[in-house]
């Protein structure tokens, strides 16, 4: 097992700072590279490393443009992965991710096509809001020479019981990085560190492609020699196109070591629309997906439940909250408490100890418990790829993400009980998830999952379903702007063909989260 040098990592790779309830993200533009580098060197000690449990935490990441603005050479910038260089908002990325219509990067509130490019992301964490304010004011007071212009300050909110706004416990499934603790995890959840941290071996037993710098620019010897990431090539090294020296350990140093790539997407959630849909449909089809053997009295279309109706005075909305929650859980693949359908098919079981120790095969080979198209079965299919292929777990392990996001905006109901949320009145305020994840290979991890699993209408043998929770149905090749979702049943499936978009993308960018030495190198440019 490789020993991971935690003091060389930024803390976000090791922990999500969960005890630090207050957090905000600063999106900055570099106004003066010199002032920014001076600040970085002078206050270097305040960035939180992976070996500390701090009272407050501060981490930093850069976009590709940000690294250029800081003064990184063009030679070096060209060694970053193409996915990172291109960013999140090219036409090709739009196509891969399905960012059309209300998620079009042209309409984002930050990043995207029409906004001032973001250079730097600062992530601030503190135990409470007043401590967070203090940290923020302290940082601003350090910027005496005007290094940055603040493009946006994104606030976050920790919701009761770590739920997200729709009312479901979020962030349960996290990969356990080998060498960073959590040894009691099942083997299929133990992931090679190189999947998240550059400079370590990944699930292929290889080093992931990592950015480099010319050795001559590393005057104080901060960085390790660059590695050749292709294992078996030998003979003459192919020189790069523009004639610069080959990526060879003698002439190149590794800028990526102990770093990672950070994906940030601001996902706005329409909570009212989500539960309105459940209400309309649960009234239509009582007890979705319940095995056909469990016969139900009365014609579901006319069943009215006066005693526990969500809207007692409105007989056109006869849905039973239990049915609404059941349908929503089929879409998510977990119950509101986070308990997976696989471990409790009939109803929520909040007191379940380990909500992440489950698989789909063989018990649910036909998707009768958890639909093939549900959010969690798509985003981490575990052993169910190709309906239970023997290679499934090995393949799944090569497409994992370390999630570090936090919610923002006031919840629709303070209690976060589904029964209260689904009755809550929409106050028109924005709420959603600042989705943040870390991975070493943007193409193989984040982009693959977003494209091949979330946005793929043919996922796992399906015909025309995208992720029912986060899917975007606007698409230049198709007039239809609603989605399809099927719930397999033992006899007659249920199918919804008018699924609206519950989640829209409001901003986003790719960042490079440097290791501590790389950060020091960047500040010395």
């Amino acid at each position, binding site marked *: 097992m490789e020993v991971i040098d935690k003091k060389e990592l930024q803390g976000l790779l090791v922990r999500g700072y969960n005890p630090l309830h207050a957090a905000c993200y600063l999106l900055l533009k570099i106004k003066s590279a010199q002032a920014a580098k001076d600040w970085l060197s002078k206050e270097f000690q305040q960035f939180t490393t992976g070996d500390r449990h701090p009272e407050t935490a501060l981490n930093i990441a850069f976009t590709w443009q940000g690294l250029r603005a800081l003064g990184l050479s063009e030679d070096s910038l060209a060694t970053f992965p*193409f996915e990172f*260089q291109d960013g999140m908002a090219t036409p*090709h990325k739009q*196509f*891969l991710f399905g960012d059309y219509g209300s998620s079009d990067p042209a309409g984002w509130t930050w990043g995207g096509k029409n906004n001032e490019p973001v250079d730097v992301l600062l992530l601030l964490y503190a135990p409470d809001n007043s401590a967070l304010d203090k940290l923020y004011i302290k940082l601003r007071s350090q910027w005496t020479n005007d290094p940055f212009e603040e493009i946006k300050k994104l606030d976050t909110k920790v919701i009761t019981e770590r739920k997200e706004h729709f009312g479901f416990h979020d962030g349960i499934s996290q990969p356990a990085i080998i060498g960073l603790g959590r040894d009691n995890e099942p083997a299929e959840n133990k992931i090679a560190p190189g999947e998240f941290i550059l400079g370590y071996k990944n699930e*292929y*037993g*290889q080093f*992931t*492609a990592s950015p480099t710098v010319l050795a001559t620019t590393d005057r104080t010897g901060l960085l390790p020699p660059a590695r050749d*990431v*292709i*294992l*078996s*090539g*030998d*003979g*003459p*090294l*192919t020189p*790069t*196109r523009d004639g610069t020296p080959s990526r060879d350990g003698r002439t190149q140093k590794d800028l990526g070591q102990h770093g990672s790539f950070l994906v940030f997407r601001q996902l706005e959630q329409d909570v009212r629309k989500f539960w309105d849909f459940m209400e309309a449909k649960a009234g*239509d*089809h009582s007890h979705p997906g319940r095995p056909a053997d469990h*016969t139900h009295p009365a*014609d*579901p*279309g006319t069943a009215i439940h006066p005693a526990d109706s969500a809207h007692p005075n409105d007989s056109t909305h006869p849905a039973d909250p239990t049915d609404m929650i059941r349908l929503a859980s089929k879409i998510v693949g977990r119950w509101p408490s986070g308990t997976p359908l696989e471990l409790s098919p009939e109803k929520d079981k909040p007191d379940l100890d380990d909500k992440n120790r489950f698989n789909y095969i063989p018990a649910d080979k*036909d998707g009768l418990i958890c639909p093939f198209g549900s959010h969690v079965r798509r985003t981490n299919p575990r052993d169910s790829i*190709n309906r239970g*292929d023997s*290679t499934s777990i*090995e*393949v799944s392990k*090569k497409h994992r993400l370390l999630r570090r996001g936090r919610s923002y905006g006031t919840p629709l109901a303070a209690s976060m009980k589904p029964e209260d949320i689904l009755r809550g009145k929409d106050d028109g305020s924005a709420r959603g998830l600042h989705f943040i994840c870390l991975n070493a290979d943007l*193409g*193989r991890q984040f*982009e*693959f999952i977003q*494209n*091949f699993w979330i946005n*793929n*209408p*043919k996922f796992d*043998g399906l*015909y025309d379903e995208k992720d029912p929770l986060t899917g975007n149905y606007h*698409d230049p*090749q198709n007039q239809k702007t609603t989605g399809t979702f099927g719930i*397999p*049943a*033992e*006899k*007659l*499936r*249920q*199918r919804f*063909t008018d699924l609206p978009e519950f989640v829209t993308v409001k901003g986003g960018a790719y960042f490079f989260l440097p290791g501590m030495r790389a950060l020091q190198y960047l500040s010395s440019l």
Partner: protein
Amino acid sequence: MTLHGALSIIVTVKPGMEKELADLLQQIEKDPGHNPLLPFAQIDSIHFARFVICPTRPDARGRIIPSCLVFTTNYDQPLADHLQKLTTITGPGLWKVFSYTDPFPGGPFDPNNLAAFLDRHSIKANTFYVGVANRSVQQIRQDAQLRDDIQQFLDHNGKRLETKDAQDIREEIRQFLSTRPGATPTGKPSPGQTWTHEPNPDNTASYTLSRIARLSLAVILSLALSPIIIPLALIWVLILLYQELTRPNIKCSIEKDHLEQLLERETGIVQNQFSAFGDLKPGWIRYYTIMTLLRLTNFLAPYLFSKGSLSGIPSVHFARWLIINEGRQMLFLSNYDGNSEGYLRDFIDIAGKQLTLLFSNTIGYPRTVLMVFGGAKDANGFMAWARQNQLITNVWYSANPSVTVKNIFQNAKIRKGLYGSMTERAARDWLQLF
């Protein structure tokens, strides 16, 4: 039952005409099915068609190979019928496209001259893989339509049917299909039809039998010759191993501009194409190795890779390998579901060993030992090799662009399940296909 063919026409491009030819093909690519020049959609026997310009480049020994134009189709046999349609419906267009190649008869369009030209430059694929089983273009299309129609029927009648038995629901579906207007094409029941027998069942029995006979013959022959084959094969493998260990491996790299041009053309949400062109490792040992392996794969493919799965990859409609330019290069063309990132990951993650056996005979492939070990295990090296050798596909046409291989198989099961009687259990299983 339909048998498929793989037509491959390869002709040298007239010197200096690459750009003009590429521009012409770009016009066709704007609407490959319905453009006035080559309206491929009017030929009902084409599953996929493509044009690829292989740019000029030196071979492994530095000799220049001029650029050539590759035109391929995957068609429903018989070939004569396919050629007849090609030379009439798309005749004038093909005449125009091939006028950029040399040798070309020239003069005004003449279907007979075109047919002779195509015949002269047609190359048989060394290995041809079929992932859609014995299904014609029309069968695939009608099965997809059938499934869509039933789904809509179930959408509109779900509430009413919910309480019924599976057998009764199935009967209602049959009723609906028999009575709705316009339900007559082959493979679909006509109005008032009885559902006792499938009208045109896939009569594969004699075909399967002849396949089994051929396989048995091959096994018996190899057993009989094993005293000669085994020692020879051992020596052969040792020579290869020696070469693998001593010859330098060339390293590939991915160029950003090239990759961008490739990805820009992947605009299919459901299906995409892959074209690649690599130099074979020099020497007669390698040449005979790859020829033998491709022939063997071609022979065994119907046994090993039936049911729509190429070495475990469940998403390839058709693929072909061709050894061209006097044995100096390998051309690989495939039509698959998804996009190239996922497709190449499947090569690495699922079918690494089997495909390494074939592809490791090309230069730049990650180092192998005994032709199956190593290789695609070097995921970074494999991706670099694949992207460096991948070609821009200038024109790509798909007749049924919205179905995956998995969909095709499931749709066929749905159709088959309409006929005969079923137990309640079997009817439930069948209903789960929706």
